[in-house]
C-alpha cells in the first residue's frame, strides 16, 4: 500500500525548472528521509507535492487518488500535511487562534488537549501572540497541526533548523510519535544521521532528480553520502 506516489514530477519557479521528473514513493505507515545538498530541490519538491508550487508534469497520488490538479487546500483536506520550512505558524495570531486554525471545525478544547498531550507548554501560552514565542515553541505549534489534523501523510521540511539541540530532541520525538500512530512521513532534515536513523527508506535528490533510493543500511558505508552530499 503506497500512501504517497509521485511520478515524473516537474516543477519550478517562473521559467526555471527545478524538478526534472521526480519519482518518489512513501509506503503507508513508513518514514522516508529525503536528503540532498543545498539547491537539490527538496523544499521545492515538498511544496509542489503540497500544491504551493505548480507542477508542470507528472502525477501525485495520495492513497491511490490523483491530486495533482487540486489546489493546496484541497490536498490538505485530502489528508496531506506539509510543515513548511521556517516556522509554519501565523505569527500575528494567538496560540489559541493558531490551534483553532489547525482544528478547523473540531471542538477547540479537544484540539488544545490533543496538542498539549505532546507539547504541554502550548497550553500555558494560549493567549500569547504566536510570533513572540521561542523558536522551539513556534515549531511545536507548527507541528501540532500534524497531530490535530490527523493526516495520512506528513511532509516535514527542516524541522530542526535554528533550534537548540535539546529542543531538536523534543521535536524529533514528536515525529516518532506521529510515526507510531501510523502516519506516513516524508522528512527533509539537516541532521542526516538522525533522519536516516528514523527512516525506513532514504531518497537522495541531486539537481532536481532522484539520484539514490535505498534502505538506510545501504548508505551506512558513507560512500553514497560522499558522492551526493559531499560528506559522510
Amino acid at each position, binding site marked *: 500500500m503506497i500512501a504517497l506516489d509521485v511520478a515524473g514530477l516537474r516543477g519550478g*519557479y*517562473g521559467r526555471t525548472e527545478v524538478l526534472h521528473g521526480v519519482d518518489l514513493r512513501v509506503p503507508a505507515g513508513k518514514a522516508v528521509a529525503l536528503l540532498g545538498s543545498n539547491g537539490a530541490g527538496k523544499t521545492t519538491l515538498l511544496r509542489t507535492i503540497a500544491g504551493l508550487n505548480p507542477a508542470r508534469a507528472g502525477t501525485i497520488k495520495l492513497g491511490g487518488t490523483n491530486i495533482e490538479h487540486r489546489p*493546496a*487546500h484541497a490536498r490538505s483536506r485530502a489528508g496531506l500535511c506539509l510543515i*513548511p520550512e521556517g516556522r509554519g505558524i*501565523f505569527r500575528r*495570531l494567538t496560540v489559541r487562534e493558531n490551534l483553532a*486554525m489547525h482544528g478547523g471545525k473540531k471542538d477547540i478544547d479537544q484540539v488544545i488537549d490533543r496538542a498539549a498531550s505532546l507539547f504541554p507548554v502550548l497550553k500555558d501560552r494560549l493567549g500569547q501572540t504566536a510570533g513572540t514565542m521561542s523558536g522551539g515553541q513556534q515549531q511545536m505549534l507548527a507541528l501540532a497541526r500534524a497531530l490535530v489534523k490527523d493526516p495520512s501523510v506528513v511532509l516535514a521540511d527542516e524541522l530542526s533548523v535554528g533550534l537548540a539541540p535539546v529542543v531538536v530532541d523534543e521535536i524529533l520525538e514528536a515525529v516518532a510519535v506521529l510515526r507510531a500512530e501510523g502516519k506516513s512521513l516524508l522528512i527533509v532534515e539537516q541532521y542526516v544521521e538522525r533522519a536516516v536513523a528514523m527512516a525506513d527508506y532514504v531518497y537522495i535528490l541531486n539537481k532536481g532528480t*532522484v539520484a539514490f533510493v535505498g534502505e538506510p543500511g545501504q548508505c551506512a558505508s558513507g560512500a553514497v553520502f560522499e558522492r551526493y552530499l559531499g560528506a559522510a
Partner: protein
Amino acid sequence: MSEYLPFLVIGLATGSVYAIAAMGLTVTYTTSGVFNFAHGAVGMIATFVFYSLRVDVGLPTWLAMAIAVLGVGPAIGIVIDRVLLRRLDGATAATYVVVSLGLLVALQGLAIWIYGPATRSLDPILPHSTFRLPGVNVGWDQVILVGIAAAAGLGLALFFRYSRLGIQTRAVVDDPGLTELEGLDSGLITTFSWMLGCSFAALAGVLLAPLLGVDAVLLTLLAIQVFGAAVIGRLTSLPLTYFGAMLIGLGQALATKLVTGHQSLNGLPSSLPFIILFAALVLSPKGFFQEVVRTRAAAVRTGRRAVGRTFPWPLLVTLVAVAGLLPTRLNGARLLTASSTLGFVLVFASLSLLVGLSRQVSLCHAVFVVFGATTLSHLRNAGVPFVPALLLAGLAMVPVGALVAIPAIRLSGLFLALATFGFGILAQNLLFLTKFAFGAASVVRIPRPEVFGISLASDTAFYYFVLITVVLGVVAVEAVRVTRLGRVLRALADSPTATESLGINPTAARVIVFCVGAFLAAIAGGLLGTLTQVVNTSTFDFFQSLVWVTVLVTTGAATLGGSVLAALLLVAAPTVFTSATFVKLQPVFFGVAAMLLAQAPNGVVGLFRRPDFAALGDRSAWRAGSRRLAERSLAETAVPSMGVTA
C-alpha cells in the same frame, strides 16, 4: 465656544461616514495587498443603483438600500477580486495601482455615460427631526450616522477577534500559503474580504448621497477623502483608521467654521484630508509604511523584454517626416488637433520617464502642465520674450518636481502614488486660485508670440514651433533613457537594494528624474496653453493625471512609441471618431484597457514585435532555431516515459 458645537456635531457625523468607507478600504488592502483607488467609485456605482431602484423603480427605501449595500457592493467586490486581480498574482505594486486607477476611470466614465454628468438630488433616508442638547441642536440623522459607524467598527473588531471566518481572514493576512496548508481556500477568504470592503463602500455612498446629491464625480471623490484616514491607520489598523476618519471629519467641520470670512482660505476644509494624507506620508519616518506584499512563490517575475534601451532613431525620423508634412494636408481645427497631439506627446514622454523608466507612479503630472502654462502667461505679461519665458516656466517647475521627489526618496510603489495623488489635489485646491496660478479670475491668456522675428500667430507657423520644441524634448527623454541615468533608474526599479550595494546613491537619480519630468511637462503645458491661448482651472484638473497614467500604461510606458500612441488615442482619436458615444466611452475604454494591459510588458506597443531582419539573413540562426525546436519536442515526448531513475 458654543458656536463651535454645531460644527463638532457635523464633524462627528461626516467623520462617521468616512470611517465606514475607510474601514472597508483597510479591510480589502490588508487581506489582498491591493489598495483600491476605485473604492469611492465602487460606492458611487452602488449609490446610483440605489437611486435607480428607489426613484425609477419605486422600491421601498430599505429594500433599495439592502440591494445596493448587500448585493451590488459585494458583487463588484467579487468581480474586482476574481476577474481583475486574480490573474495578476505576483505583479508589482505599480501594476496594482494602475489596475485600480483603470477601474476608477472606467467606473466613473460608465456612470457619466449612463446617468449623465448632472447631480441628482435624493430625498433623505434618515429622519431629519432634531433634539436639543445643552448648547446645540442635534439631528437624529446625525446620531444614527454616528451609531451606524460605531456599530460597524465594533462589529468588525468583534468579527476579526472571535468569529471563525474573522480569524481565518487574519490568517490569510498573516500567510496565505499557510492558510492553504490548513485546508482553507485562501482565495475564497480574500474574495469574501473584497465583498465586505466593497459593501462598506456602498454603505458609505448610500448614506452620503442624500447630503451630497447623487453625482458620479462627487461620490468618487468622497471616498478619496478617506485615503488620509486609511494612511493614519497605516492602511492596516482598523481602530486607527476609525480614529483618523473622525479626525478628518472633525477637522474639516472646524476648519469650515474657522475660515468663514477668509476668502483666500476657502479651499482649506476640502483640502484637509489631502493635507493629512500628504503630510503623513512625507513626514513619517523611513520604513514606517510597509506595503502588504502578496506574492506567491510560484509567481516569480521573469525578465521583462528589453525595450527603450536604444535610441529610437528610425521611429523619430519617421514621425518628424510625417508630422512635418501634415500642415500640407490639414487645416483649421484639424491642424490645431495635430498641434495639441504633438504637445501631448511631450506630456506623455515626460510622464514615461517616471511611470515607464523608473516605475514610479506619479499621479500629479497635470500640476506641472498647468503651472507651466500659467507661469508662462505671467512671464509673458511681465514682458519676457517667448522662448526664454517658456524655458523659465519649465525651470520654475524644477523645484516643484524636487519637492514631489521628497516622498519618492523614501516611499515606493503604492505610497509614492498616494503621496503624489494627495499633492495633485492639494495643488489644485489651494494654489489654482492664487496669484501663482490662475488668480481669482480662474483663467489665464497666453497670446501667440513672435519668435526671432517670425510671427507664430498663424496655426501653421505655431504648429512647426510646437513640432521643433517637442522633438527637442523627446530627444532629451530618449537621451535620459539610453544614458547612465536611465540605467540607474531601471536598476532602482528592479532592485533598490542591489543598486545601492553597487555604491549608487538612489536619491540623486530619483530627484533628477522628477525634475526633468516636471521641466518637460511644464514646457508641454506652455505649448498647449499657447496653442489654445486660454487656459482655465478645469482644463487640466487632477483627474487628468489619473487618466494620463492609465492611457500611457495602456499604450506602453517605456518607449517613445507608447507616448506617441497615447497622444494619438487621447487627443486625435475623439476628433476622428466624433460620435457622442465614442467620446463618452473613451474614458471607459482607457480604464478597461489599462486593467487588461497593466501587466503586459510594454502596453499596446509591446505587443508588436519588430522583425529581426539580421537574424533572417543568418543561416546559422536558422539551424540553431530548428535544433532548439527539435530539442523541445524531444523533451515533451520524453515526459510520460520517464522511468525510475534510481
